[in-house]
């Protein structure tokens, strides 16, 4: 009985939201752009409004907006980005070989039309980004899949902002995955079955009988689905959502995906291999907006604290979960970019806004003209594949205002 009722509830919420998707009009989009714009110029920045926008229908809509909102979601001052890593970042790092191996094999993560030479430049940047963050945080350990997170950031926000974002994510949202062992990760995965049990006991029991375990969801969790989705726009949509959410949210989404496929699962042979195989391959046409709503709904109904009371989850402490409150608080008092820029200038920082270059303004034009062909190629690669908006990234001195306003009309 209880189960049935809950299912219905979830369905109803999702249904409404899905309706909004189909009805979504230019008007809705423009409204959202305005809301985001206003949240960004509020002082302090209206972080709750940005979170709602990122998680809500359609997410952050464009990469241009992501470049403005993502750093806010992680409390990053875009005028104080870390410098571009130098050569030394690659020197004797214990994970160097593994990182190179994984990045070289990550071709699928790059846009299909991108010329190989441009992809190669970005892959080199990807190696640098990962090693830079690992060097800054000796307590963190590389895992296969970390590169899937890094590449998603790189393709949207460029090298230097990626370092800042990845650094923060690694210390908070991804922290549990970066222990010396995967025991904490396993602990996080252990939240999955109790959620399923609450919503659909029958499905839960079926999966227990099949002894399928939860490893089918491992790559979903530790790459925020970047490893398993073939459409980059879907990955971006989920990153909007997760950047605005509790670190356990990927598990709640995993639960909604399994629940969404309930019939298929139950029709499969009750066998570990069969169920693992079915679940580990995500259908590419999932109704993401609906599932995101359902995940939020599940999160509210069965918050982590409630699930943690269950036996299997008691023993261990999750750093991602325990630090989330503090992280959340830290994001509440951010100044808008215009103020940050003024303050940063006043403090004598000369760093560029979006971080594709590390040189001071005077030298920048020169570098751009004569030097660093590799860098140019990378920027062009991005522009060609992700749309003209990316060109703004190259215009390092450009304020965020004009291009956003352009989009409003």
């Amino acid at each position, binding site marked *: 009985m209880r189960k049935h009722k809950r299912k219905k509830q979830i369905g109803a919420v999702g249904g409404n939201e899905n309706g909004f998707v189909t009805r979504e009009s230019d008007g809705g989009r423009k409204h959202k752009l305005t809301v985001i714009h206003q949240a960004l110029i509020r002082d302090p920045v209206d972080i709750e409004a940005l979170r709602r926008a990122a998680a809500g229908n359609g997410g952050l809509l464009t990469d241009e907006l992501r470049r403005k909102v993502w750093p806010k979601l992680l409390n990053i001052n875009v005028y104080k980005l870390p410098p571009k890593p130098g050569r030394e970042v690659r020197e004797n790092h214990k994970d160097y070989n593994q990182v190179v191996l*994984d990045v070289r094999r990550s071709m699928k993560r790059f846009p299909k039309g991108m010329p190989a030479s441009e992809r190669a430049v970005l892959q080199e940047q990807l190696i640098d980004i990962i090693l830079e963050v690992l060097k800054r945080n000796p307590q963190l350990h590389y895992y296969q899949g970390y590169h899937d997170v890094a590449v998603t950031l790189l393709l949207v926000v460029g090298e230097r902002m990626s370092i800042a974002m990845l650094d923060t994510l690694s210390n908070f949202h991804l922290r549990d995955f970066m222990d010396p*062992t995967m025991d904490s990760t396993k602990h996080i995965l252990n939240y999955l079955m109790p959620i399923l049990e609450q919503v659909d006991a029958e499905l839960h029991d079926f999966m227990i009988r099949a002894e399928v375990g939860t490893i089918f969801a491992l790559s979903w969790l530790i790459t925020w689905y970047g490893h398993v989705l073939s459409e980059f726009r879907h990955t971006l949509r989920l990153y909007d959502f997760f950047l605005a959410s509790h670190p356990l949210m990927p598990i709640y989404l995993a639960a909604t995906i399994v629940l969404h496929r309930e019939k298929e699962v139950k029709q499969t042979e009750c066998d570990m*291999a069969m169920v693992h195989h079915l679940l580990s391959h995500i259908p590419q046409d999932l109704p993401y907006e609906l599932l995101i709503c359902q995940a939020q709904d599940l999160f509210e109904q069965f918050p982590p604290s409630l699930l943690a009371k269950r036996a299997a989850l008691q023993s261990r402490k999750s750093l991602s979960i325990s630090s989330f409150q503090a992280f959340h608080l830290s994001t509440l008092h951010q100044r808008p970019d215009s103020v940050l820029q003024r303050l940063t200038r006043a403090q004598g920082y000369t760093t560029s806004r979006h971080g594709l270059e590390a040189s001071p303004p005077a030298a920048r034009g020169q570098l751009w003209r004569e030097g660093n062909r590799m860098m140019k190629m990378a920027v062009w690669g991005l522009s060609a594949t992700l749309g003209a908006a990316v060109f703004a990234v190259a215009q390092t001195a450009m304020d965020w205002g004009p291009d956003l306003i352009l989009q409003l009309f």
Partner: protein
Amino acid sequence: MAESGSAAELSGSLTSSALPPPRTRIFKIIVIGDSGVGKTCLTFRFCAGRFPEKTEATIGVDFRERLVEIDGEKIKIQLWDTAGQERFRKSMVQHYYRNVHAVVFVYDVTNAASFRSLPAWIEECKQHALGTEVPRILVGNKCDLQDSVQVGTDVAQQFADAHSMPLFETSAKSPNSLGDGSYRDSDHVEAIFMTVAHKLKSQKPLVLSQPAEGSGSTVTLSGGRNDDGGGGRGWSCSSC
């Protein structure tokens, strides 16, 4: 499961003809070894018949299968392609060592470190009760890269002998163009996995039956045949 002798004895009194058609038997084979040695490529080669253009890091466990026919019996070969990075070994892959019928250890002939890791992988298996009673083979991959070989056949053969495993050298990329001798030609990926399958089929059959919801000992009795039909290349000696 695999070492359950009593279950196997049960089968002696029955024959396959006396029973309804058996369900397809499933041979579960786990493929392990360091990251980058080519586990995904090898399993893909066997199940899809070609070298994958792009592989990605395996996170956790992937699973591939192929239906083959051995001596007139259709058999499903299930390959568990595991993550190579050390951190995944202990807490993650564990779950999948259960109910495995055979183990394939893979190293990269162009990467000495991957060869040096083998004792750790063997130890890992032992900890999961996959000792010498379970068929195990050693595969040296990437033989097509002849100019960068770091692990010679003789060293590998010694190691394989010491652990009583057959050794196979092959290439997931171009298994048929291994230079000189025709004997090497026989070491293609297909043949390697089929050899394991033959070996498994030649074992006491019942233990390999697919359990019907946990009570495995009563179904899929294909009789006590032990004719070793296809394992002709022999088990104890390497064909390299």
